């Protein structure tokens, strides 16, 4: 499934510079150093963290998109950074578990 297809399923796009990217698996975590070493390339990464390091870690781990759960806000300058760096950032109004369950159904 492509990242942009998530928009048809209730996900909101904050930054979508590379919407055609394929999602392969999901990783969940908020401890950035941990995620950096464990998220796999092309994973969709669900987190509630919203600082500049999230964009850096998404770049390093080469995830297909960041999904902010629970309607977490991302400051406009960070959204701008994400666009510049080609990092897809989406948002879900649901908690992490429900977001993951929904994704599991979609990418199966």
């Amino acid at each position: 499934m492509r990242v942009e297809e998530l928009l048809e399923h209730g996900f909101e796009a904050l930054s979508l510079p590379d919407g055609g990217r394929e999602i392969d698996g999901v990783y969940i975590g908020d401890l950035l150093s941990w995620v950096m070493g464990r998220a796999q390339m092309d994973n969709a990464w669900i987190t509630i963290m919203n600082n500049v390091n999230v964009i850096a870690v998404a770049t390093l781990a080469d995830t297909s998109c960041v999904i902010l759960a629970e309607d977490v806000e991302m400051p406009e300058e960070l959204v701008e950074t994400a666009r510049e760096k080609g990092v897809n950032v989406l948002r879900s109004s649901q908690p992490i578990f429900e977001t993951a369950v929904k994704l599991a159904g979609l990418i199966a």
Partner: protein
Amino acid sequence: MKELSLNILDVAENSVKAGASLTQILLTEQDGTLTLEIVDDGCGMDEDVVRSVIDPFYTTRTTRKVGMGIPLLKLACEQTGGSLAISSVTEEADPVAHGTHVTATFDMNHIDFTPLGDVSSTVLTLIQGHPDRDFMFRHRLQGRDVELDTRELREVLEDVPLNSYDVMEWIRGNLQEQYEELSDRDTRDGED
């Protein structure tokens, strides 16, 4: 990082890479606040480089090449309501008193405070990996110190390398004893 001690190791390794002959790791715990200082006499950084180590996306920085040590340390202290500051003097600016001083403060009672973890192991790892460099470690807990200075050890040991097995074991035991002495005294104070 799951423990601050791993973050400290990461940042202190930057000091070694900057050519520091002496790297000081100073921890001060006082009334619920932890102050971490990493002070080196390495080549120093100009203003632009300082900004680039703090911000993972500053101008032309290529994130893949530069570590996340400082950005993650900054996050760890800010999420407790603390802050991080870096001051640095380049070798060009001052051929004698150059180096970098990183200061991070933490509110240890904040729910998002990252546990300090095993700092003794951090110190041992640094000495083991860089026996030709000097390290000064001081952990001040409510005004009492746990301390280790490789310059003092070097004077006593003369030609014995600091990373030889016996020396490493001695350092490990010595730090452990110092920590135990502090906690014993705390227990006794509690009974008074």
